[in-house]
C-alpha cells in the first residue's frame, strides 16, 4: 500500500541476510553488542506499537515488561537452575498475565488513565522488586549464571535469539495489522465509541493488543538478563528505557509496521554512544536532556514520525496510482436495489410477524427537563415508520435511549424478543440494533470498504486472525457500495468523500450488521436529491428484506414517500400517529408546530 513496498519485497531478505551474517564475518564485538541492544529496543518498540500505534493507547511503562521478564528468568535461573533460554519464555508468560490484569483494571477508563496506570505500575514493580529482596536480591542485585558455551562463539546465542525474536515480533505485528484484529484496533483508535456501537468488543481487542505488546518484550527481557549477567532493580526498572521505546516509535512512525524498527536503529546507537561517550558525573543528566528533549521535540513537531513523512515525499516523487490493487470491476453493473446482501448471514426475518421493537414507558429527564416523558413504541418488521416533531421534542433522546447511548433507567425495550434496557451498546448491536447519526462519523484510518466491513455481530476469536477483508466480504461490500454509486471509492479513505457520500457509507456500515431494526437520524439532511433517491431506494430494499426501520426526518416529502406510518412527538411524548396525510391534518400536530392557540396571545403586542 505504500511506495516503499515494491522495494520492501527486496530489502527485507537482504537486511535479514546481512544481520545474520554479520557476526560470522566480523569479530568486532562492540558492534555485535550494539546490535543486541538495538534488537531489544526494536522488539520493545514493535510491541509498543501494537497498543500505542494501532489501538492508540500510549503506555509509559513498557520497560516494566523487560524488568518482569528479566527477573522471572533470573530468579528461575538462580533458584531453580532453569536455563535462561527456557526461563525467558516463562518471563513472557508472566508479562502476558500482567498485561491482561492491567487491561482489566483499565477497561472502564480511557486512554489518559492508561498512560498513568502504566507509568505507576512501572514504579510499583520497581518498588516491589527492591523490597522483596529475598526473591530478587533487591538493590544488592541478582547474579545470573554465566554462559555455558565456548568463548569463540562470543555473544552469538544472544544475538541470534534476539534477532529471531525480533523477526517473530515483526511477523506478528504484520499479521495483526492485516487481520481483523488490526482493523478493529485502528477503528478503536479513530473512534472507540462508534466502534463499540458497531458491535466491537473493544475491551477484548485492547487486552489482546496489550498482551501481545508485552509478551515478546518479556521474552527479550529474559534473554537480556542472561546477556548482562547481573540484574539490579534501579537499572532494570529505569524510566529511561520506557522513554527510549516511546521515542523510537514516535520518531520512526507510530502505527506503521517498520517505523518502530527504523526508530530503534536510530535511537539505540545514540543511546549506546552517549552512555559510553559522555563521561563524568553529569553523564546521566546529559542523556536525560538529550532523550527528553528529543522526545518532546518529536511529540510536538513531528508527531507522525519519520517514515510517513518519507513516504509522502516518495509519493510525490514517484507519481503512481494511490492504490496497489485496483477495485475488481464487476461485470454485472445493472444491479437492482434489492441486492444488498446475498443473505448468507441473514437472520431469517422472512415470515416473522412479531414486532421488531417494542418499547414501553421510556423516560429521561435532564436536570428538571423531561426530554422523554413516557413513550411507547411498536415497530413492525418490514415497515418504515417515521418519527417527526418540532425541535426539542425529544426525538434524539429517544434514539439515544433505544440504542444505549443514554442509559435507560425507566421503561423496557424488547428487540426481537430480547430485553435490552440493561444492555450495553455492543450487546444491543449484536442483538440486531443499528443506528446512523445526524453527523456521519467514519473511521478515517480505514478505507471505505474496511469501514463497511468492520462492524461485528458477534465476537469470534478465530476470526480475529483472518485477513481484514475476505474476498467474500469484499464482494458483498462492493455490491452495497455499487448500489450507492460509491464503488469507485472503495479503496480510498473517507477523507475524499462528500458529506452526503459519507452518510451513505455510514448506512452501508450499519447494514453490515444484518440488523433487525435500523434507526436513521435525519439521513436525507444535507444531501443532494440524487443521493437522496438512492438512499430512499436502499431503505425500501431493506423493507423488502423484513427489516424494521425508524426514520427521523424534517423533510416531510421524504417521509411521505417512504413511511406508511408516522409518530409525532412533542414535549417528550407521542401526540399522534397515523399516515402522513392523517397527521398533517391533525389539529394537535398543527398546534405542536405552530403553537397552542389557547395560550394568552399578546394583545396589541407591538408597542
Amino acid at each position, binding site marked *: 500500500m505504500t511506495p516503499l513496498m515494491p522495494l520492501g519485497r527486496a530489502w527485507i531478505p537482504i537486511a535479514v541476510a546481512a544481520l545474520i551474517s554479520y557476526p560470522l564475518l566480523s569479530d568486532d564485538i562492540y558492534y555485535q553488542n550494539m546490535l543486541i541492544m538495538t534488537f531489544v529496543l526494536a522488539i520493545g518498540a514493535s510491541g509498543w506499537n501494537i497498543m500505542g500505534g494501532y489501538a492508540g493507547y500510549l503506555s509509559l511503562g513498557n520497560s516494566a515488561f523487560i524488568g518482569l521478564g528479566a527477573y522471572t528468568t533470573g530468579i528461575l535461573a538462580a533458584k531453580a537452575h532453569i536455563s535462561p533460554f527456557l526461563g525467558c519464555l516463562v518471563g513472557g508468560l508472566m508479562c502476558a498475565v500482567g498485561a491482561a490484569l492491567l487491561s482489566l483494571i483499565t477497561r472502564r477508563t480511557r486512554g489518559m488513565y492508561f498512560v498513568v496506570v502504566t507509568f505507576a505500575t512501572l514504579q510499583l514493580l520497581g518498588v516491589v522488586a527492591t523490597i522483596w529482596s529475598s526473591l530478587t536480591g533487591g538493590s544488592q542485585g541478582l547474579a545470573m549464571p554465566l554462559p555455558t558455551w565456548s568463548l569463540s562463539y562470543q555473544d552469538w546465542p544472544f544475538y541470534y535469539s534476539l534477532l529471531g525474536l525480533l523477526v517473530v515480533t515483526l511477523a506478528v505485528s504484520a499479521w495483526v495489522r492485516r487481520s481483523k484484529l488490526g482493523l478493529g484496533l485502528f477503528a478503536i483508535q479513530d473512534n472507540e465509541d462508534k466502534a463499540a456501537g458497531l458491535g466491537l468488543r473493544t475491551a477484548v481487542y485492547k487486552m489482546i493488543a496489550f498482551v501481545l505488546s508485552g509478551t515478546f518484550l518479556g521474552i527479550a527481557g529474559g534473554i537480556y538478563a542472561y546477556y548482562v549477567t547481573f540484574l539490579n532493580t534501579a537499572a532494570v526498572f529505569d524510566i529511561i528505557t520506557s522513554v527510549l521505546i516511546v521515542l523510537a516509535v514516535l520518531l520512526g512512525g507510530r502505527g506503521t509496521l517498520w517505523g518502530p524498527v527504523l526508530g530503534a536503529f536510530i535511537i539505540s546507537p545514540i543511546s549506546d554512544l552517549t552512555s559510553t561517550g559522555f563521561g563524568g558525573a553529569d553523564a546521566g543528566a546529559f542523556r536525560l536532556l538529550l532523550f527528553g528533549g528529543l522526545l518532546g521535540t518529536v511529540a510536538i513537531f513531528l508527531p507522525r514520525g519519520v517514515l510517513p513523512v518519507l513516504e509522502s515525499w516518495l509519493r510525490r516523487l514517484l507519481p503512481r496510482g494511490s492504490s496497489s490493487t485496483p477495485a475488481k470491476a464487476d461485470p454485472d453493473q445493472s444491479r437492482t436495489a434489492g441486492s444488498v446482501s446475498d443473505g448468507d448471514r441473514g437472520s431469517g426475518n422472512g415470515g416473522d410477524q412479531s414486532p421488531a421493537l417494542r418499547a414501553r414507558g421510556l423516560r429521561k429527564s435532564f436536570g428538571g427537563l423531561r426530554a422523554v416523558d413516557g413513550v411507547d413504541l411498536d415497530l413492525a418488521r418490514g415497515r*418504515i415508520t417515521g418519527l417527526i416533531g418540532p425541535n426539542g421534542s425529544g426525538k434524539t433522546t429517544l434514539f439515544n435511549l433505544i440504542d444505549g447511548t443514554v442509559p435507560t433507567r425507566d421503561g423496557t425495550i424488547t428487540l426481537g424478543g430480547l430485553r435490552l434496557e440493561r444492555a450495553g451498546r455492543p450487546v444491543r448491536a449484536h442483538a440486531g440494533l443499528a443506528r446512523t447519526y445526524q453527523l456521519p462519523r467514519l473511521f478515517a484510518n480505514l478505507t471505505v470498504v474496511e469501514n463497511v466491513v468492520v462492524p461485528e455481530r458477534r465476537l469470534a476469536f478465530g476470526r480475529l486472525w483472518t485477513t481484514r477483508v475476505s474476498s467474500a466480504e469484499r464482494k458483498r461490500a462492493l455490491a452495497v457500495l455499487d448500489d450507492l454509486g460509491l464503488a469507485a471509492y472503495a479503496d480510498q479513505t473517507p477523507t475524499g468523500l462528500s458529506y452526503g457520500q459519507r452518510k451513505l457509507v455510514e448506512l452501508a456500515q450499519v447494514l453490515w450488521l444484518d440488523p433487525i431494526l435500523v434507526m436513521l437520524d435525519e439521513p436525507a439532511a444535507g444531501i443532494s436529491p440524487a443521493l437522496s433517491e438512492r438512499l430512499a431506494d436502499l431503505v425500501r430494499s431493506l423493507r423488502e428484506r423484513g427489516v424494521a426501520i425508524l426514520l427521523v426526518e424534517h423533510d416531510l416529502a421524504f417521509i411521505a414517500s417512504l413511511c406508511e406510518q408516522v409518530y409525532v412527538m412533542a414535549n417528550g411524548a407521542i401526540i399522534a400517529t397515523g399516515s402522513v396525510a392523517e397527521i398533517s391534518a391533525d389539529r394537535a400536530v398543527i398546534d405542536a408546530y405552530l*403553537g397552542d392557540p389557547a*395560550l394568552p396571545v399578546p394583545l396589541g403586542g407591538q408597542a
Partner: protein
Amino acid sequence: MIHLEGLLAGYGGLDILRGVELHVEQGSVNCIVGPNGAGKSTVLKTISGLLQPRQGSIVIDGVNLAGKSPATILHAGVVQVPQRNGLFAKLTVRHNVLMGAYIHRGRRKHLEQRYDELAQRFPILGERPDAPAGSLSGGQRRTVEFARAMMLNPKVVLLDEPTLGLDPLSLTTIRDSVRAMHSDGITVLMVEQNVRFGLALADQATVMSAGRVVLTGTADEIRDKPDLMDVFFGAARNSDSGASTPT
C-alpha cells in the same frame, strides 16, 4: 440596523445557510420562523460570532461584523440569548447576570448600579441573587438570561427560541421582557418555534426554509397567510401520497 447579504455558513462540509438576505429595521421586533433545518438558529450564531460565515456580510449599524470574535461583537452592542445552556449552573444568579458585562468587568460601581436597575424590572434578581442558577426553573432561568443580556445596554438582542422548554404560563414573562426591550428602543431579532406566539409578539416576520429566506413581511401579513403550513410540511400536506410502494 441589521443587514445580512449573501450569507453562506455551515459546519464541517455541510452548508446550512445558502445565501441568506435579511434586513431588520432599527427598533423593530423581527421574528424568524420556519421548519427545522432551515438554518434559523444558524443565522443568529453567525451574527453573534459563534460561527464564522464562509461568505457574505453582516452589517450592523453600519459596521460589517462578519467573522469577528464574539467579544468584538459584544462591544458593538449585539447580545445573544442562546437556545439552551445560556446560564452557568454553578454560578449564582447575581454572578450570572454580572457575567453579561464581562467585557466591562473593570467598571465595578457601574455594574452594581446596572444590576440594581435591572432588579427593578426583573424581580428575581433582588429576590434570589445568591441562588445557584442550576436550581431555578426554566422560566426563571430565561428571565435571568434576559436580565444578563440587558447588562450591556445593547442595541441589538438576538433571542434563539426563547419559549423552548417553557411551560405555557411562562410565556407572559417572555412577552413582557420583549416588550420592555422594544420600549427601550432595542432592535430584537428572534427565532421562534412557536409560530403563533412569535408572530403575535413581533411586528416584522421572516420565513426561512432550506437555508434561505423565502418570505418577508409584517407579522400580520405572514400570520394570515393561508398556506403557511406548506412551508413546514412541504408539498406532502396537499397530496394524499402516503406510502408510495405497495407492500
